């Protein structure tokens, strides 16, 4: 293991930002810290970078006690959400900064610095913009400068704090692809913070889901999707609806119908089932289900989404591929709604 975080806790006033967080990252792994704002993900990243001092717990990196080291000694590359580029320096100077500030004996010669900066700018596809100032760049370009600057010091670990948070969707997607390519080439252990589950699932080898200063689940994107550890994880990873029922073995019974439980094992009794819109079916032929009124049918990319409201006003959604929508379904019509499979936590 290259990074080992044990039992990290950090308190701000009466709020616990981190509450006993432990995780590990293998060398070269790409880890995402995912959670809503206030979940502690940024605090965790900053504690690893050395920008925050945790109250208790340990951070070890390749056997070294990170907490005893200054951010400088840790030599981690940090990319800030708002870039934090040096506004009075050119792109080139920004990227070279970390090399130029090294003490005399370990500072690379000028030619080598120039060479490395050129290579890095090529890597982030910014060659040709060496002499520009940050104010003359677009947001995406600035973020790539920040990335190159962080990589220039040959960091032992790359940390990114919501790196794409301030960018528009198209640029985000481009940068995501570039980041993955850079990670593959550089092979450096990378941790990045995000509140966007798509981004986390798309990029990371493993995702750490945080909530209220605690880890809800650590797992690969696939594990998270197939076996969410808690209702929070399930809800955070995508849209879902809830329905009360009674657990009976590997099934849950509702009013006149039942559905299989994916994560079976709950004792018999009252429980709430969670399910996805794309695992929901609409029936127009009078079979049992939750009686609903179809309000609207929206095209959402390749799928159609039917928005339904139960008689007591709860909102349910059902998604179908274009050819699977029941032909009779239309706004204003009545239907009964049934989950195909559910999770119970």
């Amino acid at each position: 293991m290259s990074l080992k975080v044990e039992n990290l806790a950090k308190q701000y006033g009466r709020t616990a930002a981190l509450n006993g967080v432990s995780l590990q990252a293998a060398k070269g792994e790409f880890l995402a810290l995912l959670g809503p704002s206030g979940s502690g993900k940024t605090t965790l990243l900053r504690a690893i970078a050395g920008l925050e001092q945790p109250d208790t717990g340990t951070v070890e990196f390749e056997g070294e006690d990170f907490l005893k080291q200054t951010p400088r000694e840790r030599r981690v590359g940090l990319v800030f959400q708002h870039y934090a580029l040096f506004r009075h320096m050119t792109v080139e100077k920004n990227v070279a900064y970390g090399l130029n500030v090294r003490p005399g004996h370990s500072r690379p010669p000028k030619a080598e610095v120039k060479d490395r900066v050129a290579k890095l700018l090529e890597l982030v596809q910014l060659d040709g913009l060496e002499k520009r100032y940050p104010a003359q760049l677009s947001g995406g370009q600035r973020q790539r400068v920040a990335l190159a600057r962080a990589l220039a010091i040959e960091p032992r670990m790359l940390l990114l704090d919501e790196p794409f948070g301030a960018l528009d969707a198209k640029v985000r997607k481009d940068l995501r692809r570039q980041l993955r390519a850079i990670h593959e080439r550089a092979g450096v252990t990378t941790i990045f913070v995000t509140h966007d589950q798509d981004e986390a699932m798309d990029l990371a080898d493993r995702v750490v889901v945080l909530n209220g200063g605690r880890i809800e689940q650590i797992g690969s994107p696939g594990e998270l999707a197939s076996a969410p550890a808690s209702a929070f994880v399930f809800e955070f990873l995508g849209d879902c609806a809830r329905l009360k029922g009674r657990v009976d073995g590997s099934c849950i019974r509702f009013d006149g119908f039942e559905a299989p439980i994916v994560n079976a094992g709950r004792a018999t009794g009252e429980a709430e089932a969670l399910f996805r819109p794309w695992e929901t079916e609409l029936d127009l032929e009078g079979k049992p289900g939750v009686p609903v009124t179809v309000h609207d049918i929206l095209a959402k990319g390749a799928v159609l989404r039917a928005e339904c409201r139960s008689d007591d006003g709860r909102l349910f959604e059902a998604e179908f591929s274009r050819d699977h929508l029941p032909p009779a379904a239309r706004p204003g019509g009545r239907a009964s709604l049934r989950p195909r499979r559910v999770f119970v936590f």
Partner: protein
Amino acid sequence: MADAKTRRRRWREPSVLPGFGPAFGFTLFYLCLIVLIPLAALIARPWEHGFGGFWHAVSNPRVLAALKVSFGVSLLAAAANVVTGLIVTWVLVRYDFPGRRLADAIVDLPFALPTAVAGIALTAIYAPTGWVGGLLAPLGIKVAYTPVGIWIAMVFVGLPFVVRSVQPVLQDFDAEVEEAALTLGASSAQRWRGVILPALLPALLTGFTLAFARAVGEYGSVIFIAGNMPFKSEIAPLLIITKLEQFDYAGAAAIGVLMLAMSFVALLAINAIQLFLVRRGAPA
């Protein structure tokens, strides 16, 4: 990042940046040396006859009258500066005209011009024989040697404080907010009242307080034009001098301490409001 803004328990938030100790230490040391110890000497001075002596010195009707003149006229001058300063700032920021930079430059003149020079110059202008005084004299308007003269001098020293407080805020004022108001059909008066003024309020308040505090203490530029008539145009700093001329250090310090306390409270209040607004993210 929301975490960093939550309530603090320690005296200082730990930070990765170095140098708080030396920088804060030096600042505090310097403040002590140049501001606090000298002021302590002032504050310690008036009590040789106990609180009674202090009270006697500051409750004298002439002292009270002078404080009234000083604080009253300063208030009026600061109020006038808020209005005129806002107009001047608006003109400087929003309109382009020849000589704009020059006009912008001379706003700071009262910061830099020696106060005594300003006082002499203002007296020369507003005395009945002066350029402006000569025009006003036939109308029966007296400026020099009346409280109006004091007011003019205080307006002079206070104007840059208002302009320089408001200017950056107005410069940074988000065009979208104003345009939004415009597209929502707000009249220009409504835009002023509803959108622009509230945004400028903290800066205006700061400018007002600084101009006020400066005017209260002002001596050099006021003394020549004031007339210095007891109960009418005598300012509190002059009374400090008067007490000193009579070798009454305790009395002089008593008035000084009182003025200092009043200014300090005003500044403290404004800085508290200011910090509150900064924390809230409003333009300050």
